């Protein structure tokens, strides 16, 4: 089961990619939190067991949400997610390198940041605003691909800019003095502080930049330095002598050393953590949810239960329609399919109700996204084939119809098991579904290229940051139809009214007002049945028995490694 960055991106689950870890939020339920004291938590070695490697550990190429799990230990960014809590506040933006989360201009097109005093790189040289500017500029270089697309769209001149290696700089990032950075945007973006949590906003000293080799030893601005890095497959992080808690109120950096080990089988990770023998007692799961083998033991094993943390990460798995392909241009057909879908079967196919909950809205069911409940085509847990048949008859298919469902071959959440569950449910409503599998990479290419987009396919979208904007705009904004590929507006919807509402919501810098706007937009879009939301993933992960203060961030659902103690 491959979930490499590439495959994930291809899958349309772009953000899961960089985080390769995406997981829960929820309340802090870490084991033995009572015995935890930040003042004396230092020492020991924490092991992170993962299936996937970190990939290229270059801040320009990483695609993370809220700074990621391991990257946030090495790269400090202008702003970051709130590391200090496992509660809902974890979805808030807080200052990191900067003194605040950013000062917007009146219309949110100019954002100004000031760096804190006393910040240093791992070699003791001070961090200046020019280093932040240079770090962002690097991410425009085609030689360092893979990062999120927002900067190219938002910064003036970003569309044409090809990175600093050819000598040019990007004038829309200004550094009037060593501690000030000013960003000039093409349009109002109230969500800019959220974007500033990405690793692209980490400072990079130009003198130490080795281009594509920088990933081997990126210069740290955080509590740990990379002392060994086997292509992100296994990494060893050790204390950065120039970092102190006095210049960082977000990270505790308890362990002296953090060892990241990947290439492990998911079942092996779970069994090792459950057994907790030797070093595994001080280990956490990097990217693996508990499986049926562990779930079945939880009822009878209270000790094991106390080591499982539940969390949420804003993501929705859905069936996508391409209305340019018949019969999906017919709203009645899309509605009939919405009625016929059996969400329980789909959830069972991906691991059961412990790791997924049914979705009827496109927005994840967390307030930060602006969740507004609706269920326009109520199908109950297991589908309403009678209602679906009725709609099909209205649509002119009284004897049912035949359609094709495209899916990927190996990845679980967009793969054959989910496809078979949908096929079976639609069959009950008289819709014969032919399955059309393609290799993961090919699947991504096909579904993200409007000219080759299939009519009906399985897809997923996760939050780049916990706000409605990055959740709805890439999927429904008509100006984000990318004809050259990488398109996620699968309905190829270009509705002036929707576009206008997106623009209006983007202008809002007050989170509460923005949440209301996005929630309203989602509820309107839901009526059109452009997608069939299937489920929101739930993250359930194990820690070793000697791990303290382990909680998952409500922002991106990863264990907050910067706060864990193993002493």
């Amino acid at each position, binding site marked *: 089961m*491959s979930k*490499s*960055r*590439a*495959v994930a*991106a*291809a899958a349309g689950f*772009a953000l899961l*990619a960089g985080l390769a870890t995406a997981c829960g939020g929820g309340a802090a339920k870490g084991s033995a939190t009572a015995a935890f004291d930040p003042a004396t938590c230092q020492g020991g070695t924490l092991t992170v067991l993962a299936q996937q490697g970190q*990939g*290229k550990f270059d801040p320009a190429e990483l*695609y993370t949400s809220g700074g990621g799990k391991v990257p946030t230990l090495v790269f400090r960014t202008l702003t970051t997610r709130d590391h200090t809590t496992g509660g809902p506040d974890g979805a808030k933006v807080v200052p990191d390198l900067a003194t605040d989360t950013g000062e917007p201009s009146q219309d949110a097109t100019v954002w100004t940041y000031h760096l804190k005093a006393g910040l240093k790189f791992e070699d003791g040289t001070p961090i200046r605003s020019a280093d932040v500017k240079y770090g962002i500029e690097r991410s425009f*270089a*085609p*030689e*360092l*691909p*893979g*990062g*999120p*697309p927002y900067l*190219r769209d938002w910064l003036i001149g970003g569309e044409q800019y090809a990175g600093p*290696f050819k000598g040019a700089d990007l004038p829309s990032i200004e550094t009037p003095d060593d501690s000030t950075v000013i960003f000039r945007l093409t349009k109002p973006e109230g969500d800019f502080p959220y974007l500033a949590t990405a690793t692209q906003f980490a400072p990079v000293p130009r003198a130490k930049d*080795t*281009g*594509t*080799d920088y*990933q081997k030893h990126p210069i740290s601005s955080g509590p740990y330095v990379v002392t060994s890095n*086997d*292509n*992100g497959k296994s990494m060893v992080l050790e204390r950065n002598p120039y970092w102190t808690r006095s210049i960082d109120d977000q990270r505790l950096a308890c362990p002296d050393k953090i060892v990241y080990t*990947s*290439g*492990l*089988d*998911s*079942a*092996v990770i779970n*069994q*090792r953590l459950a*057994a907790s*023998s030797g070093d595994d007692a001080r280990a956490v799961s990097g990217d693996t949810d508990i499986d049926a083998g562990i779930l079945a033991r939880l009822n009878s094993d209270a000790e094991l239960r106390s080591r499982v943390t539940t969390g949420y990460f804003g993501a929705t798995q859905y069936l996508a329609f391409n209305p340019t392909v018949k019969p999906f241009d017919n709203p009645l057909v899309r509605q009939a399919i919405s009625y016929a879908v059996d969400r329980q079967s789909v959830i069972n196919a991906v691991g059961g109700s412990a790791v997924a909950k049914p979705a009827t809205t496109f927005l994840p069911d967390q307030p930060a996204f602006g969740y507004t409940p609706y269920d326009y085509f109520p199908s109950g847990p297991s589908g309403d084939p009678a209602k679906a048949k009725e709609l099909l008859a209205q649509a002119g298919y009284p004897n049912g119809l035949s359609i094709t469902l495209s899916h990927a071959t*190996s990845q679980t959440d967009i793969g054959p098991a989910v496809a078979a569950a949908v096929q079976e449910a639609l069959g009950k409503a008289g819709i014969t579904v032919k399955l059309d599998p393609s*290799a*993961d*990479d*090919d699947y*991504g*290419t096909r579904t993200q290229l409007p000219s080759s987009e299939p009519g009906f396919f399985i897809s997923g979208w996760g939050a780049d940051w916990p706000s409605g904007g990055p959740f709805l705009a890439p999927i429904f904004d008509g100006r984000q139809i*990318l004809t*050259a*590929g*990488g398109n*996620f507006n699968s309905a190829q919807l270009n509705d002036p009214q929707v576009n206008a509402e997106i623009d209006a919501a983007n202008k809002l810098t007050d989170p509460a007002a923005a949440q209301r706007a996005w929630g309203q937009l989602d509820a309107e879009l839901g009526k059109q049945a452009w997608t069939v939301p299937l489920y929101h993933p739930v993250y359930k992960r194990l820690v070793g028995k000697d791990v303290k203060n382990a909680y998952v961030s409500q922002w991106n659902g990863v264990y907050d490694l910067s706060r864990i103690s193993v002493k």
Partner: protein
Amino acid sequence: MIRFLLRRAFSTLTVMLVLSVVVYLVFYAAPHDPARLVCGKGCDGVRLAVVRHKLGTDLPLWQQYWQFLHGLLAGRDFDAGTDVTHCSAPCFGYSFQTDQPVLGMITARLPLDASLAVGAAVVWLLLGIGAGVLAALRRGGIGERALTGVTLAGMAMPVFLVGLLLMMVCCGYLQWLPFPSYVPLTQDPLAWASNLALPWLSLALVMAAAYARMTRSALLETLAEDHIRTARAYGLGERRIVLGHALRGALTPVITLLAMDLGGLLGGAQLTESVFGFDGIGRLLVESVNTIDLPVVVGITLFAGFFIVIANAVADLLYALADPRVGLQ
């Protein structure tokens, strides 16, 4: 001898060449675009073209292949855009996905597969030869029939089945052993062995059957030969005859088989790795195939083919050395 080696070297090269051509053709024919996969979300035309150029997939097939061949024989330069890296011969290129040298990716995983292959070979040789000798000594007895049954059953068990069942019993129910996860020999020999015990046993159970049968029939054949009859006439005990004289002659085909099996295993044990969740060459291949990481797929194919061809040559050589009648053809 020299002629034999030269000829072998030549045919090895030919096989390698054909292998690489076939892999290129197969993947070129497939409708995939590795560049898009590397480039990620929101990758538009210009950036895509840059990535394609960097990977070299914008060139026609024969040029891509020529570059590959050139790199293999004489090394080549890679322009990453920000800097130029020289990759000296034999250069298998760089992975599309991780930008790492392919040869390094494979050799980094070789200790695992070598541990797997060599350790398992020791176990299956002990099991196989032991059982074969026993069967030859007790011809026609219950022992031999039991052995026949067990070896046939062993041959009938796919390795992933044996592995699964062993893991279910030993790690799941009895909890005698930890769930296997590879620990390098140099790091902790004890952990290395205890983690590899089950994979060794699984491979050995499947492989030992062939060795037992071969040992037995080779022994029986040798026992019927003249010098053994002479030894018998001198009144040597049957046990001494078998162990001291006959076994030596019978070991040739066994060693031949061993060379070939080891050659096959060193190129990756996909099923075993998959069952035990090891990150070896086999698993790297499956992943690379899924992500159309052509340089890695070509590299592993050549690597695996290389071991098999070499093993064949070694087997032939051993055969010829042990049995002058065969000769080096």
